[in-house]
């Protein structure tokens, strides 16, 4: 005859204290109990090094999602890309830049803080090749892949939307951050977030002859899957020669937030 044994009747020893607490702090966050293994892994966003962008995206580029940044000429789109790459490579991640327009200046990337040894520069000549290259790079395990579609007219058009959806799925499968920098909407519904960079004022230093000091821009969150949209923040970039180093502290913490009222008058 079988007797059901109630757990209360068993003299169980006291449950041992969680061993996690004995671990160093850096290790503690990475250790999961057996119960937690089946849960979907929390994906920490990838900090971009651009405070305004991190604020709008709530911590950085979401891993496993496609984020598209739109911007016209001189909106600061390339500078933003360089800062994102610099932040990732400085953190020890390998990153890839798919540069459709072949616009990168390696010396500027190094000056922006990119660890060039960790940066793979891919220079396709057609948008189809760019999409194929991105899929390969995501499959290789790059945690950050940036696609810069260059200037209009984009070589080969916007690419088919199915291709972008495929890339978004690949990024999700790999848990990688995929950033698309485009002059106009290209990725369609595949983008989990869309930000638009509007051109801001140009800073000219007028000490004798004019000297370019920097550019300003306005970053607006146009789309966020599952989140609020319409938020915006100011952003600025300075030239290396500019004596206007302040108010951008080293390393650049909080960027200059322009008075948004200036946007209307600009």
């Amino acid at each position, binding site marked *: 005859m079988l007797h059901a044994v109630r757990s209360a009747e068993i003299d169980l020893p006291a449950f041992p204290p969680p061993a996690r607490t004995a671990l160093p702090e*850096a*290790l503690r966050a*990475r250790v999961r109990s057996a119960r937690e293994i089946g849960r979907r892994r929390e994906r920490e966003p990838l900090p971009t*090094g651009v405070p305004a962008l991190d604020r709008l995206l709530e911590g950085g580029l979401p891993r496993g999602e496609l984020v598209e940044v739109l*911007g016209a*000429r001189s*909106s*600061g*789109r*390339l*500078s933003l890309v*360089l*800062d*994102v790459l610099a*932040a990732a490579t400085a*953190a*020890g*991640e390998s990153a890839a830049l798919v540069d459709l*327009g072949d*616009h*990168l*200046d*390696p010396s*500027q990337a*190094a000056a*922006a803080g990119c660890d*060039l*040894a*960790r940066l*793979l520069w*891919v*220079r*396709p*000549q057609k948008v189809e090749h760019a999409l*194929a*290259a991105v899929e*390969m*790079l995501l*499959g*290789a*395990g790059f*945690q950050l892949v940036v696609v810069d579609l260059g*200037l*209009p*007219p984009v070589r080969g058009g916007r690419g088919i939307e199915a291709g972008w959806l495929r890339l978004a799925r690949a990024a999700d499968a790999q848990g990688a951050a995929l950033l698309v920098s485009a002059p106009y909407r290209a990725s369609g519904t595949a983008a989990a977030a869309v930000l638009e960079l509007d*051109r801001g004022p*140009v800073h*000219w230093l007028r000490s004798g*002859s*004019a000297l*370019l000091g920097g*550019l300003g821009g306005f970053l607006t969150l146009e789309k966020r899957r599952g989140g609020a949209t319409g938020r915006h923040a100011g952003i600025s*970039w300075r*030239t*290396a020669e500019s004596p206007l180093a302040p108010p*951008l502290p080293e*390393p*650049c*913490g*909080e960027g200059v937030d322009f008075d948004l009222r200036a946007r209307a008058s600009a």
Partner: protein
Amino acid sequence: MIPPLGLETAMPRLACLAVPLFPLAARLRSEPELTREALAILEGNGQAARVVASTRAARAAGVRPGLSLPQARALCPKLAVRTRDGTCERAAQEALLEIADGFSPRVEDAGDGVAYIDLGSLDRRYPGAAGEVSLGRDLAQAGEARSLPVRVGIASSKLAARVAAGLPGSPVIVPAGEEALFLAPLPLARLAPHLEISGTLERWGLSSIGDFARLAPAEVASRLGRTGSDLHAIARGLDARPLVPREPPPSFEEGMSLEWPLASLEPFLFVGRAALERLCRRLEGAGLACLRLELDLGLEPEGHLRRAIDLPAPTRDAKTLLALLRLDLEAHPPGAPVVGFLVRAHPDRPREAQLSLLGPAALSPDRLATTLARLFALLGAERVGSPSPVDRHRPEASALVAFAPPPPPDVRPAPHGGRGLLGVRVLRPPLSIEVLTGGDRPAAETPLEVRPVLRDDGERRPEIRGSVRVASGPWALEDGWWTDDPADREYWDVELAGGGVYRLFRDRRTGDWFADGIYD
């Protein structure tokens, strides 16, 4: 009674791997679609060509070794015919040896589909008689995985192992010390088929190896000398021939002679893909990857084309290698029909990386190597790599170096902000424009007009047009004055009224204006 020598316990155990009908098996390994067809392998030229092996379907129709081609065709009109192919057989022999290498470091290449393995180091993994049976099955399975029908014989002498490998019911195990009994009923021709001594023994009235083994060793030595003495020992199961380990080859090869010349790329790539897949399987079995791929094409009516492809990192991805091969042949067509080919892989150890527990994840070297090779195939080597600054003043100058990222840090560093520097989109090549100036020396307040210079080359370029709102400059740039392509430029930063800040320059030698960057 065969006199014992008392040395049986000192004889090492050997396994013999033998591929029956080796010329046929090697051919079917390269053309597996012919396995169920009536196929005969011929050796010799013209009328002297004779069948040396045939498939089951051909044998069922009566095609036997020794028949001429007309005789074989008379028996089987639909008989497919291939000639013996040294390239195929070399590759199959290497594949057989690599199977053996997977089990023991001491392997002898006996040629023509035969290899010997020293089992001295395998007695722990395959202990006892049951272990030898298990080993024989594992060897046969490894052969099947490489498309080679391997038969296995295990004994303490080479001859006994070779004979056992030729018997049905593989694996055949000859217990230690029973080699003489095993060999005794065999005809003398099996002992030394290439020596005249077997004829002498037959004239003595001996018909089997057992008859020969029963003779007194001293009498045999006095009448037949050293050769006879050695054969006598072998007949008694005491094979004194040592196992001669082979040196692993420096490269891996696959190829075949084609039955008809191939004049276009696609059919060649079809057969080349199968060869590359076999090559990659062999590399994987050896724990290696391809760092350099060489292609040797035999051309009709004569001549060769040799191409070499250096890979950015070792890979064993057949699709990648095929894509690289396709691009190389499209760029360098052979110019004549192809009648045979050989692909040779120079191996290297796949890159390995130590995973980090706390730091960022490192890229898998194997996947990275494959990805880089595929990107090379897609875009070309000059379009993939790590950016590298060039020690020149021209903004458009850049260089690429091989992408080999250092290992990630052990602990992920704390994130920090970017430097906020303004970047410039470099326009490569510089965009030719027309600048209308208000005077000899344009100043910021001088009204300027920037217009694109239209070119009728079919490519759409970014357009720069508008009146100048602010101009800053000039800054002189002189670079490479000692070369054939000097640069003598006068740079301006201009903001156009319609928006956009551009970096323009005037070539001081020609007076032409260009835009080479957009502040962005």
